[in-house]
């Protein structure tokens, strides 16, 4: 087994979950209605918890403890895709990002539940079941608001158009892609992307929203190699502010 490849894979997934989990938590107290406030807060708790479990797995492979990994790295040491670090914007953008991201994440964990690295396969089966509630939530609201009023449709359409190049950045390939596929640790970003496009199309076709021409889109990449937008470092500063006051404190 190629341990470097495995670690790179675990870091990018865990970082995606942590950063989007943090963004989701920013909706706590600000949701457009109480149910959505609770939904985004619950999804935040799921995602941060899932990232913690993956950081624990990294610790068994010789990496530092989860708190140090989560709170003491700078932006250029994070492997999340840029999509998850973008500010929440208005509800329509957060909903579209949630839909695009969680659809991919559900497929990713489904693929990983077949991983040759058994601890990853075990936890992926579990996470995949939890994510079902996230994708059901996203699909329900996208279908409803994507066919509701002129305003809801045009808002979702604008967010879909602006999020899509970033969404394609989720599938930025790792330098270890071939290793991961040949060692059956993970089926690869390309296979994931193909399945994702089908799922996205299946939901959007039930709405009045239009998908962009996939071929004309230029993916926004760089996140996987630590090249982030201006938005990640301020997020990390805020997330780690309390921890950094006294990193040795026992909580």
């Amino acid at each position, binding site marked *: 087994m190629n341990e470097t490849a495995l670690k790179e894979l675990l870091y990018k997934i865990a970082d995606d979950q942590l950063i989007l989990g943090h963004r989701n938590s920013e909706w706590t107290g600000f949701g457009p209605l109480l*149910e959505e406030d*609770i*939904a985004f*807060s*619950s*999804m935040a*708790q*799921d*995602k*941060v*918890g*899932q990232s*913690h*479990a993956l950081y624990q797995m990294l610790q068994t492979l010789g990496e530092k403890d989860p708190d140090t990994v989560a709170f003491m790295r700078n932006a250029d040491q994070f492997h999340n895709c840029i999509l998850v670090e973008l500010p929440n914007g208005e509800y329509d953008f957060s909903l579209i990002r949630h839909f695009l991201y969680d659809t991919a994440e559900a497929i990713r964990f489904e693929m990983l539940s077949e991983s040759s690295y058994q*601890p990853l396969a*075990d*936890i992926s*089966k*579990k*996470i995949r*079941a*939890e994510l079902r*509630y996230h994708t*059901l*939530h996203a699909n*329900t609201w996208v279908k409803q608001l994507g066919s509701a009023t002129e305003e809801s449709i045009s808002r979702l359409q604008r967010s879909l158009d602006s999020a899509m190049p970033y969404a394609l950045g989720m599938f930025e390939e790792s330098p270890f892609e071939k290793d991961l596929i040949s060692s059956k640790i993970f089926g690869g970003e390309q296979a994931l992307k193909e399945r994702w496009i089908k799922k996205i199309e299946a939901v959007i076709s039930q709405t009045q929203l239009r998908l962009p021409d996939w071929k004309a889109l230029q993916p926004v990449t760089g996140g996987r190699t630590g090249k982030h937008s201006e938005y990640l470092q301020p997020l990390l500063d805020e997330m780690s502010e309390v921890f950094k006051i006294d990193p040795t404190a026992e909580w």
Partner: protein
Amino acid sequence: MPTREQVYTWLEEVKDPEIPVLSLVDLGVITDVQIINNEVLIEMTPTFVGCPALDFMKQEIHETLNRHGIDRVTIDVTFRKAWNSDLITEKGKAALKKFGLAPPPSRELFTELDVLEHATCPRCNGTNTELRNTFGPTLCRSIHYCNTCREAFEQFKPL
């Protein structure tokens, strides 16, 4: 040293901190108990990966077994035998219902959101109910409304 059965009986005393009528054994999160070389080895698994009550549960297990004179306890948290809602025992489901929390339907049936749409009300046992939110006050609960009782209730989510 106690027997495995004895340890299971003691673990019945440890309740889910968020649902104080349900023991960890009935919740289905204790996946194995072994006694090896005068040490009690407990394998457990969380209901949800992000469950914040896990550390608290571990501490409660230690304290409870200490009260029964068992000092050497190791708890291994693992996903080898991951939790699902069908692992809640019949006794556990009855306790949930009595507590006012609708027990989860079999996860085999949970293929579409519709399954959650008409949860059985734990008060009147009717199904003239509506799903209000698949997310609730804790990760494992959803929020429903009973049109007969005209009251909200929560259901333990199928997973």
